[in-house]
């Protein structure tokens, strides 16, 4: 081979090696952030709000926070199921879950340690003020979804995932299986739209596609921030009404996680009131029960059980178009 040929070949090889090495360097390494090292957090809370909080947390504690988020479609259940599936060799240190019922489920199965609440969200109604200009005609209860007066104008998220599933479990717990099942049948018969997620419900109400919808307080906040003509209604506040379902987030340390020390530090930091306040300021949640609003009484253990029991039924409910 000529000298020229050798030279070009050597150059090509060197380039390839350099690229591969760079890629490998970027790829490998458990990183050694100043002092703390890595901590793997599975997050089922809305990424938009969780991301900055975790970034700050990482900086403050000197930890390399590696977060994994659920997608909207699989809200809460994706990561939960992964935690269960990989319980023998968990990859996660901490689970920041969007509701306490699921955290309780995991605790009862021994996947996580006892959880602690952080911030909370309420299940509220969002009303499109142009389609329903008369405040007196607004829906005031969750049962409006099955009310013939609001035929074909409501929207809710699929009760298979996310906070809607917790809400469904709460209804089953409160009303009993018979009445709850009948309610959901009626909802469907009433032409209420059953959309993929709370985000979809928010979009539908914000554009006026639906006149009202059932979603979380932070979704309502986002819609308002986007400038949509909407208003928030705390449901079931009337005499004898069941009250608003408030769902706190939960932070739970995963048993057998890879970095237990870092997990503990991160968990302790997350449950501080300052974090809840910050989330509230961002519209991501409420620091505590809102003044003047009656909350639904729930037993979290019962809720967790109902969540498990109603899974199959609700899947079938969501399945048929």
């Amino acid at each position, binding site marked *: 081979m000529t000298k020229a040929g050798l030279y070009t070949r050597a150059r090509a090889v060197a380039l390839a090696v350099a690229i591969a090495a760079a890629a490998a360097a970027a790829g490998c390494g458990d990183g050694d952030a100043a002092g703390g090292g890595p901590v793997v957090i599975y997050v089922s809370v809305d990424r938009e709000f969780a991301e900055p909080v975790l970034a700050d947390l990482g900086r403050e504690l000197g930890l*390399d926070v590696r977060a994994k988020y659920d997608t909207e479609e699989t809200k809460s259940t994706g990561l939960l199921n992964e935690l269960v599936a990989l319980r023998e060799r968990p990859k996660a240190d901490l689970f920041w879950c969007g509701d306490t019922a699921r955290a309780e489920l995991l605790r009862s199965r021994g996947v996580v340690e006892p959880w602690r609440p952080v911030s909370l969200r309420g299940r509220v109604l969002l009303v499109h003020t142009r389609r329903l200009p008369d405040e007196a005609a607004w829906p005031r209860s969750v049962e409006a979804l099955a009310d013939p007066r609001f035929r074909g104008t409501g929207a809710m998220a699929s009760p298979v995932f996310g906070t809607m599933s917790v809400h469904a479990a709460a209804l089953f717990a409160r009303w009993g299986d018979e009445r709850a099942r009948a309610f959901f049948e009626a909802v469907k018969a009433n032409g209420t739209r059953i959309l993929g997620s709370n985000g979809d419900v928010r979009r539908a109400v914000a554009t006026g596609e639906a006149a009202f919808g059932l979603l979380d307080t932070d979704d309502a906040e986002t819609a308002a921030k986007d400038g949509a003509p909407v208003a928030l209604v705390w449901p079931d506040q009337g005499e004898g009404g069941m009250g608003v379902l408030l769902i706190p987030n939960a932070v739970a340390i995963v048993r057998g996680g890879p970095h237990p020390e870092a997990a503990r530090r991160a968990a302790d930091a997350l449950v501080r009131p300052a974090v809840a306040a910050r989330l509230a300021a961002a519209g991501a949640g409420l620091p505590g029960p809102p003044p003047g609003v009656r909350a639904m009484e729930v037993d979290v253990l019962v809720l967790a059980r109902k969540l498990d029991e109603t899974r199959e039924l609700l899947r079938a409910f969501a399945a048929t178009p």
Partner: protein
Amino acid sequence: MRPAARALAWIALLSLTALPVLALAPAPLPDARAPAEAGASPAALLARTLAVGAGAAALATVLGAPAGFLLGRTDVPLRGAFRVAFAVPLVVPPLILAVAFEAHLPRGATGAALVLGLWLFPLLAFATEAVARRADPGVEEAARLLEPSRAAVFRRVTLPLAAPGIAAAALLAFALAIGDLGVPVALGARVHASEVFVDFAGAHDPGAAARRCGPLILLAVAAALGAHRLWGRRAAAAIGARGERPPPAVALGRAGRALGLAWLSALAAVGAVAPALGLLRRTTPAVLASSARLALPAAGESLALAAAGATAALVLGLLVAAARPVRARLARGLEGAALVALFALPPAAVGIGLLRVLALLPALDRAHDAGALAVAALAGRFAPLAALLLAALRERLPPSLEEAAALLGHGFASTLGRVLAPLLATGIAVAWLLGFVLALGELGATFPVLPAGRETLPARVFSIHANAPDARVAASSLLVFAVAAAATAALLAGARLLARRRP
């Protein structure tokens, strides 16, 4: 040594592609505790998947085939510029196109078909151009003598001869369309790809995922094999065409040129310009800046992963291409069909399959954490493409070169290094660049196997799409668009540079 190298290369390739998919197969009987499968009945799901795929392929053909003829056979001006413009929608992940147009699209299967059709029209355009260029000029000249009307010649001769090639590209478009994950999820279309994702990532129900994957994989592979068969027939259709001589360009006349220009411009505008402008309008400079900051790690991740993936794909593809016996023609053989089929495997199925392999083989944990599984997914995804490209180029070389090297005492490795690689240098570089650009936009295969805390740009958009404020989603999508466009520009510039340096 060559047979050993060949076996090794194929074993490696299959373990990265077919094996993960097969790992989904031994699905146990439905767990007694597992809930009934949510979502539509299998028949409805299949119908929707077929509709999306067929719709996308049809749209891509209607848009792209005329463009291909215009580029390949006429004298419409600025052809080179249009080719560059058309590369953009192909390279941008279709998820980004969905985000860009989502306000103007119907949700569900219809919207998904429209976006996927827009994504894939350049494929049809380039394939049609290639087919049109290879046409035998003699056949058309003979036809012109018998049939004075140019339009009739086109209809009765040119088009039928080009049809198999166009149909092949349309079938491949179908396979790619039904395999995409990002678009149906973003637009709320419930098709196999999205349901499989929800089944596995959501319910962690490998049984359901496998059951749903099956029809999807079968459809994609069948379409790919059909495409392979038709593309082979295209070559046969040009009987007697020893033609290195391309057919003459058809002079369109002023009106024709204007029309052609309008058509191509419209396509370029919708495919390359409109998405960027639309996204730009939905965001603000402040959000753009903060998104850029937040997305920086993901950008770095994307580039590193794409580089590693492209390198691995290239090495594997080169081995597969070079280890073939010297005098065998790849493209029409069994290996060619297998490569096309492997490329058409739905990326989500491969990604989820790898995740399943990970669950079965704890030894791979460290590899997963290091991101090696994501590199493996990319390698498996794009090695077939590299192999097909390099094999086609190798077939243009006289087989006597490799035989001479063998007789002069050089084994497989030495011949590869001293003869094949230098002579295929341009092709190797192009294959790497192509793999790099495509890997940047990959979503379905990498999303499931990325370790916590590490994500690529498309994965980031996928994740924030549903609940981040629109401005931020638009900003992040715009960033992906910019990276893809920049990478494409680099690819084309690099290809031009290398082509010019050939002796």
